[in-house]
């Protein structure tokens, strides 16, 4: 309740108006993503961590399918006792979500009985299952890679007859497009197959630490949990290796600041043996480590390093320069390991009884068991698989271009996936019938209109939350991933107090205090704008921004908890970070001087 006795509420979904000039955005998304009148009675928050930009029509699949998979595992497969799945809605292109809790005690007990059996099986066999999981994922990735997008020649190949295949190429348009979507769905199911159980283990340990050490910062608990060898650091490590090799082979002169990837590759080919050897090393790194998204794997324009070598090549000159100066680029893994060991030992010693120490060992042991999956799944799923997925869909776009339906392969991402299927049917029919597809007149205006609408939607500042303020938020997953607690909601719903307008409060994610010039980046593709020593302010920071973390002084994000990517990476790089501020990108302007206090979770605008 607020001071005037009225129940506190954020803007209601029904009160949100269409962004001027973006009317009709609804046509980009399925009907089941629309806010309903009764949704005004529920609490929603903007999932800016995964979806910091308005969704192109196709990209909405990166909400739909993950939430199908997540909910299947929590609600129906493992039968989590206290939580069902997540529902999502789209308004003005932004994805809002809400979690469905289970509150009835008898129902919780009924679910718990099943959960114990099923989750117990996975925990008990975790290491074997994770080994098999990796094989399954690589298998899915290879299936996706092998998948052919038909080219529709004038006459089908002879072997359709000589091998009595009995199926025309146009059949494979349908089958293979379905397979791309199916594989994406399978990947997301596997993504959540073990992940929520992993978070369950984290929750237990965080809960224990909150009770045993009520005033200890979450980031300290996170440091005890985090592993040192994490796949997500590997691509960046490969860049460092390539920088070293460049110096060894004497081709480092090519990696000057602002070098162009294409030119460098060209020059290397003219450098004889040394150039060839470096390129061979590059190829080694590219498979699979350059299947790294420049984002978080939720947008088609987040290309992989393999798709766009300019990202890794932008980082190389700096590493070459650092090595020449004799600086070490190695992550201080030994020191990190020792420090983590010391912290764990000393916290353990503070416990009062042997019983507590044994429970602590069990819980932390469980966290260390699940950590590799929780952290490494991102490389397999969001990066490797997903960048290939978008690449495949783009190939279908190229097919539509070749058949005159679309003007540009990338336009395919402005159609919903069911609309793509419809456009492909048009192409298939025309090829078979010997006529012309009718899609150009139908789809091109739609694509143009949606591109225009999307631009307008980018101007909107979505409220961080909608609907009534919930009486309490105690879901540790919401806190760990999205940084959402009763306190953050309180601060989101309260206007800045006089004298505090220049302070933005979030989670202290990584310790240290620095001052510097802010660079506000709403879009990962603008990553190149970042200058040495600036402070990155973004809706969310993805692990693939690794190379940028070598450049910046500190990181601030709108969304994210202590176990969010930004927090983990920032701690790893020893940069101060404040995450989950809700509004940093709205209140801070590029060029402003700010102070980031990663000890207290406060960002202050200094001018």
């Amino acid at each position, binding site marked *: 309740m607020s001071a005037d006795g009225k129940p506190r509420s954020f803007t209601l979904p029904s009160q949100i108006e269409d962004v001027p000039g973006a009317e009709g955005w609804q046509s980009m998304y399925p009907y089941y993503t629309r806010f309903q009148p009764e949704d005004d009675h529920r609490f929603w928050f903007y999932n800016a961590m995964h979806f910091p930009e308005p969704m192109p029509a196709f990209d909405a699949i990166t909400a739909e399918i993950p939430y199908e998979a997540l909910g299947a595992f929590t609600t129906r497969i493992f039968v*989590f*006792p*206290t939580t069902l799945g997540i529902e999502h809605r789209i308004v003005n292109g932004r994805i809002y979500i809400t979690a469905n809790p289970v509150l009835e*005690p008898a129902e*919780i*007990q009924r679910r*718990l009985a099943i*959960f*114990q059996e099923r*989750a*117990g099986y996975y*925990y*008990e066999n975790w290491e074997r299952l994770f080994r098999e999981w990796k094989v399954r994922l690589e298998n899915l990735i290879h299936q996706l890679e092998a998948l052919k997008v038909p080219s529709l020649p004038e006459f089908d190949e002879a072997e359709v007859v000589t091998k009595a295949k009995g199926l025309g190429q146009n059949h494979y348009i349908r089958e293979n497009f379905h397979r791309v979507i199916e594989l994406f769905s399978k990947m997301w199911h596997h993504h959540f197959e073990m992940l929520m*159980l992993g978070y*369950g*283990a984290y*929750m*237990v340990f965080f*809960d*224990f630490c909150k*009770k*045993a*050490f*009520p*005033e*200890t*910062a979450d*980031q*300290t608990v996170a*440091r005890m949990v985090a592993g040192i060898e994490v796949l997500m650091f590997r691509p960046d490590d490969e860049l460092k290796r390539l920088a070293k090799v460049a110096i060894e082979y004497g081709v480092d002169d090519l990696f000057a600041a602002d070098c162009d990837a294409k030119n460098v590759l060209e020059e290397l080919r003219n450098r004889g043996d040394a150039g060839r050897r470096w390129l061979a090393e590059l190829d080694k790194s590219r498979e699979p480590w350059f299947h790294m998204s420049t984002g978080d794997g939720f947008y088609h324009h987040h290309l992989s390093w393999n798709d766009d070598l300019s990202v890794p090549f932008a980082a190389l000159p700096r590493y070459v320069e650092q090595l020449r100066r004799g600086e070490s680029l190695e992550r201080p893994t030994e020191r990190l390991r020792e420090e983590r060991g*010391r*912290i764990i030992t*000393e*916290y353990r010693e*503070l*416990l*009062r*009884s042997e*019983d*507590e120490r*044994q*429970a*602590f*060992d*069990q*819980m932390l*042991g*469980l966290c260390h*068991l699940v950590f590799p999956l929780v952290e490494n799944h991102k490389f397999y799923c969001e990066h490797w698989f997903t960048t290939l997925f978008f690449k495949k869909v783009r190939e279908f776009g190229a097919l539509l271009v070749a058949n005159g339906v679309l003007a540009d392969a990338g336009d395919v991402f402005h159609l919903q996936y069911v609309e793509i299927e419809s456009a492909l049917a048009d192409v298939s029919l025309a090829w078979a019938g010997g006529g012309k597809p009718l899609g150009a007149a139908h789809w091109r205006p739609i694509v143009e209109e949606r591109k225009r609408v999307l631009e307008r939607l980018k101007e909107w500042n979505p409220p961080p939350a909608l609907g009534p303020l919930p009486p309490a938020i105690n879901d540790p997953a919401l806190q760990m991933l999205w940084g959402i607690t009763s306190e953050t909601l309180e601060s989101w719903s309260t206007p800045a107090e006089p004298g505090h307008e220049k302070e933005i409060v979030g989670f*202290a994610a990584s*310790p240290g205090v620095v001052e510097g010039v802010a660079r506000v980046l709403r879009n990962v593709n603008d990553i190149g704008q970042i200058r040495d020593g600036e402070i990155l302010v973004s809706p969310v920071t993805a692990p693939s921004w690794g190379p940028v973390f070598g450049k910046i002084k500190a990181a601030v994000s709108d969304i994210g908890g202590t176990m969010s990517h930004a927090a983990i990476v920032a701690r790893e790089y020893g940069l101060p970070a404040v995450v989950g501020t809700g509004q940093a990108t709205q209140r801070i302007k590029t060029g402003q001087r700010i102070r980031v206090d990663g*000890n*207290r979770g406060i960002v202050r605008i200094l001018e």
Partner: protein
Amino acid sequence: MQLMNLDLIRHFAEIGIHDRPTVGGKGASLGELARAGLRVPPGCVVTTAAFERFLSAIDPAGSIRRQIEQLEANDRAACMRIGAEVPARFEAATLPEDLREAITVHYEELHERTGRRGVREPVAIRSSATCEDSADSSFAGLQDTYLWVRGLDSVIEHVRKCWASLYNVESVMYRRRLKLPERGLAMGVVIQRMIDSRCSGVMFTRSPNTGDRSVVVVEASWGLGSAIVSGEVTPDKYVVGKITGEVISRTISTKMRHHRPNAAGAGVLDEEVPAYQQNAACLNDHELHTLVDIAKRVERHYGCPQDIEWAIARDHAPGESVFVLQSRPETAWSAKDAAPVAAPKIKPFDHVFSLLGGRSAKK
């Protein structure tokens, strides 16, 4: 004569916690801290032997003790009479020459040790009871502390005042009620250099709010510590991770009052803090971390959580300015420690079931 002196007064460096019977709790604790290598304002303790020496000088026949032991606990009038008479005798009597000599030597030496020969720094005179802490609080009169005492005569006068407090009405009645023996009743008196503190405060190696043993909570305000202790000021509050050293929270309060030594003479002035300082943080990060390091050392030394009084001297070089004034074992949370936060389970993942299911998993 020299040997005698050693027994009458002992320097902090010569005493430890086990000397409580001869120097009292406060003195023993200060000695213990000094011996552990912590920076304590230099000082000495006038021992119980000195007290006995004084008492036998003014009452060789032992009539004071005998008289009190014969008092009825409910004979209030008689208690009042003794409680007026004896302290008056104490305060009027001159000190035996060897005792006076011992105090003089140590008092002079106190200034030599500070490197300012000839300057008579103010000192604090504190009674240091030999009985257990728990009894202290009800043992009225034994808590006497006199701050900013200047000059030898005044020092001796206040030592006598401390001794005399053993025989004030409340103390006498208290002992009679409990039928405590008078024989062997004695106290130590601490003579200690005063620290003119720029800021001072208390720190807890266990959070007073939650009992968390992984943090050090530091409270700080301007001037002498008496302003915090008396509750006249809301101090700045810092919570620092004991293991990581990170500053978890930092609350800067508006500090309206501070206590300062009276430059013109003796005693303490209670004044308004200058406006520019009221909302300023008392500690910088370096000082804060120095204090936390001290807190950890003290706790390690005693092997249990401590409540520590500290001060940062105005007139000392950085690196030599942080002093420990006092350390006591933490009692509030130690008494409450009960149920463990968690117990081991058959399988580690049974903990997940407990948390998510809201009840303990089957064993």
